[in-house]
């Protein structure tokens, strides 16, 4: 990085994460609060790395039941059938709606696993105080934060199908235990992304060139 770039933390300035006010709070005891909006002030989000890891590990564990257990159970005249996330995608693919199959595959299979891997990568690189490609890593973080909510897609599909297909003479659809685990994975990875502080990516950069 060019010299002459200086961060707020280096000047002992606190940037409020709610209203953006940059201030130097008086050195009083206890918690520092923003003069404008009253939010607690921190140089970096407290315990960001630890909390992100906690959410991420929990998401990893639940990722297994989310994919193995059925998210949907269909009961019809011809017997019962269970669907996992993957078999739902395969069904869409074989029935000819392949553009939707691609979207669902992307939203429910690719996004959660890539999110977990990307956050783990960011955390490890931050803990190793890496100075490699900070701009690209920040972009990766931005992508993870933006794309995460789209994984809820499958939860909504199950919701609508269970509500609509309640024709007792013909077929009924019930949500399976996998749906609970899958919903938890989405929520936990969203929390993990929110806890991560992207400024940590840049902290070693300035040290390196100081």
């Amino acid at each position: 990085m060019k010299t002459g770039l200086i961060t707020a933390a280096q000047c002992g300035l606190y940037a409020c994460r709610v209203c953006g006010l940059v201030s130097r709070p008086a050195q009083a005891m206890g918690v520092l609060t923003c003069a404008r909006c009253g939010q607690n002030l921190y140089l970096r989000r407290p315990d960001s790395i630890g909390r992100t890891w906690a959410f991420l590990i929990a998401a990893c564990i639940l990722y297994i039941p989310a994919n193995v257990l059925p998210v949907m159970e269909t009961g019809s005249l011809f017997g019962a059938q269970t669907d996992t996330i993957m078999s739902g995608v395969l069904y869409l693919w074989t029935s000819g709606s392949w553009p939707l199959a691609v979207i669902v595959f992307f939203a429910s299979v690719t996004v959660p696993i890539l999110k977990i891997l990307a956050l783990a990568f960011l955390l490890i690189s931050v803990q190793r105080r890496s100075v490699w490609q900070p701009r690209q890593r920040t972009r990766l973080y931005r992508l993870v934060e933006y794309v995460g909510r789209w994984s809820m897609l499958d939860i909504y599909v199950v919701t609508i199908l269970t509500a609509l297909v309640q024709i007792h003479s013909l077929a009924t659809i019930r949500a399976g235990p996998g749906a609970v685990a899958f919903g938890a994975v989405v929520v936990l990875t969203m929390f993990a992304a929110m806890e991560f502080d992207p400024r940590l990516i840049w902290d070693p950069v300035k040290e390196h060139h100081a």
Partner: protein
Amino acid sequence: MTQNSHLIACHECDLLQRRLLLPPRSTVCCKRCGAVLYRCMPDSIQPGLACAVAAVMLLMLANLFPIVGLAVQGERHDTTLYGAVEALWDQNMEAVAALVAVTTLLMPALDLCILIYVMLTLHPWGKLHRPSPLVRTLQSIRPWSMVEVFMLGLLVSLVKLMHFASVIPGVALWAFGGFIFVRIVAAEAFNPRDVWERVGGV
């Protein structure tokens, strides 16, 4: 306590930069990491408020009327969003039902109410005070309002059902579509910086 209103610290890389006054409709990005720091918006409270009110009406329509119906052998099954949540709840899927209710009913409604209230405080004839904690809430609930994801989910489930039965789109389907559009316009018109500048007298 020293305050520096002419300084801005990038929320993604903490780089200190000087605030610039730029022509309306321009976007200011961090020079180091490229994050969007702020947008210079013209006075857009009036159209923003109009869109927010329209969004409230559309959200009400979307919740009162059935989203889709299914016609099988002369029988017709309709469902509203609330009905769908209830169906999940009755199947002992309380956690999933709550998740769906929060992300598609509660959060969008809360988001809109707060948005309208805060916009009213910015309105020239607005006499309401201290919106600060509400702006904070607004920022934290935004990611949890997922109506657009729900729309995509609807589309996917309709395609799945079309092989078995005829699907009848309901009023709420169109209302949800309109809601997404109007909500984006309303949210774009609102600039949290305006609130802070007023509060701080900066």
